C-alpha cells in the first residue's frame, strides 16, 4: 500500500484533520458514562431504604444539560470530520485515477499487449471506486473505533484498576479475532475481484464482437460462458462473505461474556466497598460503547479489506515500468545516412520466433521507401521499430546518426514521425478534434488541405464539414473513410517522416492512386507499407520481405528481374484474366 499512501501527501493536513475531529467527537462520547455515573452517585446521592433523601436536583439538571451540550459539540466536530474525510478520499482517488491514466499511456506497445484492455479498464474504474469508499470510511471510522475502544479502556483504568484487566484481556482477544478474519479475507477478496475481470471481459467482447458472434449464432453459448463466469464470481463472493459474517456474532459473544465477567467482579468489589454502584454503571456503559464500536469496526473491515485488495491491484499497475529500453544520448555519427537499419532483429516475446531477422538498409532524406511482403512477413514490425514503439532484439536503427533508443530522441520521434497505423482508429468527438491530434490549432485551410491530400475532402464536406461528429471508434464512418481520415491526421502535422502502414487497404484503386500521387508531392521521407505492387512501384527504394527476412531491395523494374518473390506478388496482382482469389 506504500505507493497509494503517497497520494495522501497533498491532503496530509486534511487527512489528519478528519480523524482528529472524529477523535474529539469520540472524546465527548467517552465522557458520557462519567456524567451518568456522576448523576447516579452525586446527583442522586446515597440510597437510604430505597429512597434518595440527599438528591441534588439542580445538579441533575446541570449534568443533563452538559450531555445535551456534548451533543451539539459532537455534531460540529463530526460534520467537520466528514468534510475533511470526503475531501481526502475523493481527492486521493482522483489523484490515483489521474496517475493510473498517465501510467497506462506511458506503457509500451508490448505492455499494452500483455496487460489487456479489460484489466486496464477495471483498474481505472471499479477498483478506484472501491478504494475511494474504503479511504473515506477509514478516515471516518477506522481511527475513531480503536480510539473509543482504547479510550474506554483508559477510562476503566481511571475508575477501577481491577476492571482494567478485564477490559485489556477482552480487547486483545477481540483484536486477534478481527485481525484474523481480515487476514483470511484479504486474499479471498483479491481472488474474487480477479473473477470480476473475467465477467468484464465477457461483457466487453460481446459488445465489440456482436456482429461476428451473431453471425455464428453464438449468443447462447456466449451466454453459457458468461453465466459460468458470473457463477464463479458469485460463489467466491458468497464464500468470502460467509467468512466475514462470522466477525459480528463472535464479537457480540465475546463482549457480552466480558460484561458478565465485569459485573461479577464489580459485585465483589462493591460488596467490599471498593466501588460504587454508579461506577459499576459507568464501567458497564463503557463496555457497551466498545461493543457498538466493534460492530461498526467489523462492518468497516469488510469494506476496508476490499479497498485494500483493490488498492494493491492498482498498485501493481502503478508500479509497472514501461518495458521499453532507453539508452544515453550521443552526439550522433556525422555524415551518416538519414535513416539506417543495421542488422535489425525483433521478436515479440522473449524466446519466441523472430519476427524480423538481420534487416539492413539505408534511406536518404526525402526518399520514398516501399515495404512489401506477404501477410506476417514483418512489414509492420519493421516500421514500428522506427518510432521505437518496440525494442529491437539485436542490431541498431538510427535517424540522423543517432540511435532511436536514445532518451533525447524520443520527443523527436513522436513529433516528427507521422504514423498511419494499419487499424484505422478514430475517437469520439468531431472530425476537427480527431485531425487536431496531428497538429493542435491547425487552421481550417491546413485541415482541408490535409483532407484533400488524403482524398477525404468530399465526404467530410458531405458529412457536414470539420465539425461533423465522430462516434466512439469512428463507428459512423466506413472502413475506407476511417483510413482516409487517419491519413489526413498524420499528414496535417507535416512530419519529416511519414509511415503509411498498409493504410489504404480499404480504398478502391482509383482513390488509392490519387492518394499516392498527392503524397508523392509532399516533401517528406515516406514509408509505404503495402501488399500491392501498384502502391510501391514508384518508390525510390522497395524493400521486399519474406518471413522476416529481406529478399530484395531495389527499384520496381530491377526487382521484377532480380527478385522472385516480388515478381510473384506482381504477377498475382496483374494477372487479371486468370482471375485471382476473392
Amino acid at each position: 500500500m506504500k505507493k497509494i499512501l503517497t497520494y495522501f501527501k497533498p491532503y496530509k493536513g486534511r487527512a489528519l484533520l478528519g480523524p482528529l475531529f472524529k477523535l474529539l467527537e469520540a472524546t465527548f462520547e467517552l465522557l458520557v458514562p462519567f456524567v451518568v455515573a456522576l448523576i447516579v452517585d452525586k446527583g442522586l446521592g446515597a440510597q437510604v431504604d430505597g429512597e434518595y433523601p440527599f438528591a441534588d436536583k439542580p445538579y441533575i439538571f446541570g449534568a443533563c444539560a452538559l450531555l445535551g451540550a456534548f451533543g451539539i459539540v459532537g455534531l460540529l466536530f463530526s460534520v467537520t470530520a466528514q468534510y475533511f474525510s470526503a475531501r481526502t478520499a475523493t481527492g486521493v482517488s482522483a489523484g490515483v485515477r489521474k496517475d493510473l491514466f498517465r501510467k497506462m499511456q506511458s506503457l509500451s506497445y508490448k505492455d499494452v499487449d500483455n496487460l489487456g484492455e479489460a484489466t486496464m479498464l477495471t483498474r481505472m474504474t471499479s477498483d478506484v471506486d472501491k478504494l475511494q469508499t474504503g479511504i473515506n470510511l477509514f478516515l471516518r471510522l477506522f481511527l475513531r473505533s480503536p480510539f473509543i475502544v482504547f479510550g474506554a479502556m483508559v477510562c476503566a483504568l481511571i475508575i477501577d484498576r481491577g476492571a482494567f484487566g478485564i477490559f485489556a484481556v477482552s480487547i486483545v482477544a477481540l483484536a486477534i479475532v478481527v485481525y484474523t478474519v481480515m487476514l483470511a479475507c484479504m486474499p479471498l477478496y483479491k481472488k474474487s475481484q480477479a473473477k470480476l475481470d473475467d465477467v468484464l471481459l465477457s461483457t466487453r467482447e460481446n459488445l465489440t464482437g456482436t456482429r461476428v458472434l451473431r453471425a455464428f449464432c453464438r449468443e447462447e453459448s456466449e451466454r453459457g460462458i458468461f453465466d459460468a463466469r458470473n457463477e464463479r464470481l458469485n460463489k467466491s463472493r458468497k464464500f468470502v462473505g460467509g467468512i466475514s459474517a462470522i466477525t459480528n456474532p463472535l464479537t457480540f459473544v465475546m463482549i457480552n461474556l466480558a460484561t458478565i465477567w465485569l459485573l461479577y467482579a464489580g459485585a465483589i468489589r462493591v460488596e467490599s466497598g471498593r466501588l460504587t454502584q454508579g461506577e459499576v454503571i459507568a464501567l458497564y456503559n463503557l463496555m457497551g460503547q466498545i461493543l457498538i464500536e466493534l460492530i461498526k469496526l467489523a462492518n468497516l473491515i469488510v469494506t476496508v479489506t476490499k479497498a485494500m485488495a483493490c488498492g494493491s491491484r492498482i498498485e501493481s499497475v502503478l508500479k509497472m515500468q514501461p518495458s521499453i529500453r532507453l539508452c544515453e544520448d550521443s552526439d550522433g555519427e556525422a555524415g551518416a545516412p538519414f535513416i539506417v537499419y543495421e542488422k535489425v532483429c525483433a521478436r515479440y516475446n522473449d524466446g519466441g520466433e523472430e519476427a524480423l531477422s538481420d534487416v539492413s538498409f539505408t534511406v536518404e532524406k526525402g526518399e520514398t521507401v516501399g515495404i512489401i511482403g506477404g501477410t506476417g512477413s514483418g512489414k509492420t514490425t519493421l516500421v514500428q521499430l522506427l518510432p521505437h514503439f518496440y525494442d529491437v532484439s539485436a542490431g541498431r536503427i538510427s535517424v540522423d546518426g543517432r540511435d532511436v533508443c536514445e532518451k533525447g530522441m524520443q520527443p523527436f520521434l513522436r513529433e516528427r514521425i507521422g504514423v498511419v497505423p494499419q487499424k484505422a482508429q478514430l475517437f469520439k468527438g468531431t472530425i476537427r478534434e480527431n485531425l487536431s491530434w496531428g497538429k493542435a490549432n491547425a487552421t481550417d485551410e491546413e485541415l482541408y488541405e490535409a483532407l484533400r491530400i488524403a482524398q477525404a475532402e468530399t465526404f467530410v464536406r458531405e458529412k457536414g464539414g470539420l465539425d461533423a461528429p465522430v462516434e466512439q471508434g469512428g463507428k459512423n464512418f466506413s472502413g475506407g473513410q476511417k483510413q482516409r481520415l487517419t491519413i489526413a491526421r498524420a499528414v496535417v502535422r507535416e512530419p519529416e517522416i511519414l509511415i503509411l502502414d498498409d493504410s489504404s487497404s480499404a480504398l478502391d484503386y482509383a482513390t488509392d492512386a490519387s492518394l499516392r500521387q498527392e503524397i508523392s508531392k509532399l516533401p517528406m521521407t515516406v514509408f509505404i507499407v503495402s501488399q500491392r505492387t501498384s502502391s510501391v512501384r514508384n518508390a525510390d527504394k522497395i524493400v521486399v520481405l519474406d518471413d522476416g527476412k529481406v529478399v530484395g531491395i531495389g527499384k520496381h523494374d530491377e526487382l521484377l528481374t532480380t527478385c522472385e518473390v516480388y515478381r510473384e506478388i506482381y504477377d498475382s496482382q496483374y494477372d487479371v484474366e486468370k482471375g485471382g482469389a476473392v
Partner: protein
Amino acid sequence: MNGVLPPKKPKTFRRIMHYVGRYPLALTGSLLFALITVTASLFVPVFFGDAIDCITQSGIAWDTLRALFWKTGVAVGIASLAQWLTSLCNNRISCNVVRDIRKDAFAKIGALPLQYIDTHPYGDTVSRIIADADQFSDGLLIGFTQFFTGFMTILGTIAFMLITNFKIGLIVVIVTPVSLFVAKFVATHTHKFFKQQTQTRGEQTAFVEEAVSGLKTTKAFAHESENERKFDEINARLEKASFQATFYSSLTNPSTRFVNNLVYAIVALIGALDVVRGAFTVGGLTKFLSYANQYTKPFNEISGVITELKGAFTCASRIFELLDATEEVSDLGNERLEKVDGNVTLENVAFSYDKEKRLIENLSLQVEKGKRVAIVGRTGSGKTTLINLLMRFYDVDQGGVFVEGRDVRAVTRKSLRQNYGMVLQETWLKKGTVRENLKLGNPDCTDEEMYKATKASHAHGFIKRLEKGYDTVLTGGELSEGQKQLLCIARIMLTQPSMLILDEATSSIDTRTERKISDAFSKLMEGRTSFIVAHRLSTIVNADCILVMDAGRVVEQGTHKELLQKGGAYAQLYNGQFA
C-alpha cells in the same frame, strides 16, 4: 417484449423486490433469524439492568445475580447464532440477486438490436453491468443486514420501553423520529449528487474505454498529453461530484446522532428525577439508557442505510434502463429456416440508419442459388449496409429481403444466420486459444477438419510458429491484421453455410497468399450463393453478377464484360486500377 415499448415499467423498488423474491427461503430465513436476533439481544440489557439493581452498596443478591448471568449467556448464544445465520441469508440474497441481474443484463446484450450497440459507447454499458451492479450489490447487502434488524430493534425497544416506563418511553418514541426526518431530508437532497456522480463516472468509463482501445494510436501521435488534459477535465468533474455525493450523504449520521444524544440527555434527566421520586430504580435507568442507545442506533444505521440504498437504487435504475431498452423484434414463434439452396431476393428495399437521411431506396435484386454476386462501389456507397440487411443485423424500413421465397422476418434469426458464412474486413477474435477461435462457428468439428481448413487458408504455418501453436491464447497483439483475416477465413471454412458474405475479407492479406488460398476459396464458393464486397477488381471479374453501388443505389448491374462495354461507372473504376 415484441419490440413495442414495454408496458409501463414498474418502479425500481418493485423490480428489485421481484429479483429478491426469487429466493423465498433465504428471505424468510433472513427475516426469521433477524427477529430471533433482535428479540434475544433485547433481553440482554434487561438482564444486565436487573443485575445492576442487585449490586447495591447495601448488599449483593448473589443468587439472583448468578441466575441472571446464566440467562444472559443463553440469550447471547441464541442472538449471535441467529445473527450469523441472518448474515448468511443476506449474503446469499445480495450475491444471487446481482448475479441474476448481471445474467439478465448480459442476455439483454444478445437481444438488443445492433442499432443500440452501434450507437451506445461500450464503456458505458460495461460500467452498468460491472461497476453499477457491484455498488448495487453492496447497497443491497447493507440494506438487508441493517434495515430489517434495525426496524425490528426499534419496534422491540419501543415495546420494552413502554412496558418498563410508559412516560419516558412515550417521550423517546415521540422525539426520536425527528432523526428520521433529518435523514430523509438529507437523502432527498443528496440524490441528485449521486446521480451526477454515476453519470460522470459513466462518461469517464466511456472515455477510458476509448483511450485504452486506441492506446497505440495515441502513442503514435504523441497525443498523451491531450488525452490527459481531457481525462483530467472529466476527472476533476468526477472528483467534485463524488465529493458532493460523499460529503452530503455523510451528513446523515452526525445529524441523527445529534438528535439521539439529545434523546439520551432527556432520558437521563427524566429518569433521574423519577428515581428521586421513587418511581424508578437505578437499574431501570441504566436499562433505559442502554435502550435509548440501542434504540437510536438503528435510527442512525437506517438513515445511513437510506443514503446507501439511494446510491444502490440509482445504480439499479441504470441497469434497469439497459434492461428496458427496446429489444429486437422477437422471432419467437417464427419458423426455422431449414438448409436453403441459396436463392435470395430483395424487393423494393428502403433503409437508412438515420431516418432523416435516406440511404438505400427502392433496391431490388434477384440472386439465384450458387451465383457469385460482387458488390463494388466507392467507400461509403452502402455496400456494408447491404450486408447488414442480408444478415438481418438491421431490418429494412420498406420492402423485403427473401431467402428461398420466404421473408427473412418470418423465420428465426438464428436459422437465417446459420445459412450464411460471413468474413468481415474488421476481424474480431475473442480472448481465447487459436483453437477456440477457429471452432467458434462449429464447436463440434474435429481437429483434423480444423487442420484441413487452416492448411487450405494458409494459416497453419504461422499458427504452428506461435508460442503454443493452436493452444496459444490470443489477447490481441500476437497476430497481424492479415493473419487474423486468414484465421477468420479458416473459421468460415469449418462451417458449411449455403450462402457466403465476404466483406473485404482479404483486404489485409497479401496478394501472393491470397492467390495461394484462391483454390480453397473457389472450392468454398462452389455451389454457394456468395456476396462479395471487394475493392480489388481482380477478385471480382469472375462474378456472375456485379452490382455497382453509389450513394445507396445500384447504378449498374451486369457481368464484367457487359459493364466494361457499357463504359459507365464500373469501367471508370476498373480503369482506375491501372492508373
